[in-house]
């Protein structure tokens, strides 16, 4: 039984680290800043999520139920999209190079910075 749990823990740890790696590769390989944001927001959420799931399993099987990791996951899910949005917003205002056609800003950057 404990062998099975160990295997499950290993599975989640490996899955998590591979997705974290893929997310980082995406950061390097994708063509422009907006596409690059897709790597960190997605691949890392499942990556860290799986690693934390492995952590929950490990500590729960050894010293009683442990759910602290859910908290880390919750805060990660709240902050990752916000930081991605801030980055892309900054890139939009700076008119960074983009493969996709940048949307026209109908009200100027000065006006927009007023309401954030």
């Amino acid at each position: 039984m404990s062998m099975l749990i160990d295997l499950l823990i290993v599975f989640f740890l490996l899955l998590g680290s591979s997705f974290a790696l893929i997310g980082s590769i995406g950061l390097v390989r994708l063509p422009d800043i907006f596409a690059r944001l897709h790597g960190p927001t997605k691949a890392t959420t499942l990556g860290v999520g799986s690693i934390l799931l492995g952590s929950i399993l490990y500590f729960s099987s050894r010293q009683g139920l442990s759910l602290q990791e859910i908290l880390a996951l919750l805060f990660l899910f709240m902050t990752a999209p916000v930081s991605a949005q801030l980055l892309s917003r900054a890139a939009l205002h700076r008119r960074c190079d983009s493969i996709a056609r940048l949307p026209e800003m109908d009200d100027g950057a000065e006006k927009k910075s007023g309401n954030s």
Partner: protein
Amino acid sequence: MSRSFTFFPHPLLSALLVVLWLLLNNSIEPGQLILGGFFGIVVPLFTRRFWPQRLGVGRPLLVIKLAGRVVKDIVSANFSVALVVLGPTEAVKPGFVKVPLDVDSDFVTTLLATLVSLTPGTVSADIDMEKRVLLVHTLNSDDPEALIQEIKTRYEAPIKEIFLC
């Protein structure tokens, strides 16, 4: 500040704080429960001014359904992004799509933008709170209309039902 004084200005926030406190301490001992309950009452009272809009949950059961759908989408999002990342980068056709929103609560708009960022192929890039438009960056811009429809039916509609707005 015209609203009358209550001890629970935000019942949802109170419940969330108690759960957070218990998770933080990793225990459900009576002492921690009392302390968590104390924070659950005091913190919303002190931060009332930061939360001007009141939030009500109309359909609690729908939350579970939506959460399950989001988890499923996050997993599939990861696989699709992994495929894009490891495949030829020439195949990527990124584009911006403007999604008009029907919701009018700040919190719900934020929640929707977060969900869009976590799910397949899309990252919300900008929110125009005045015009209620969500600017979404997608990795696959073949059919913007379908993308708008998907976001609206898959996420916006259930969120609207849950929070009754």
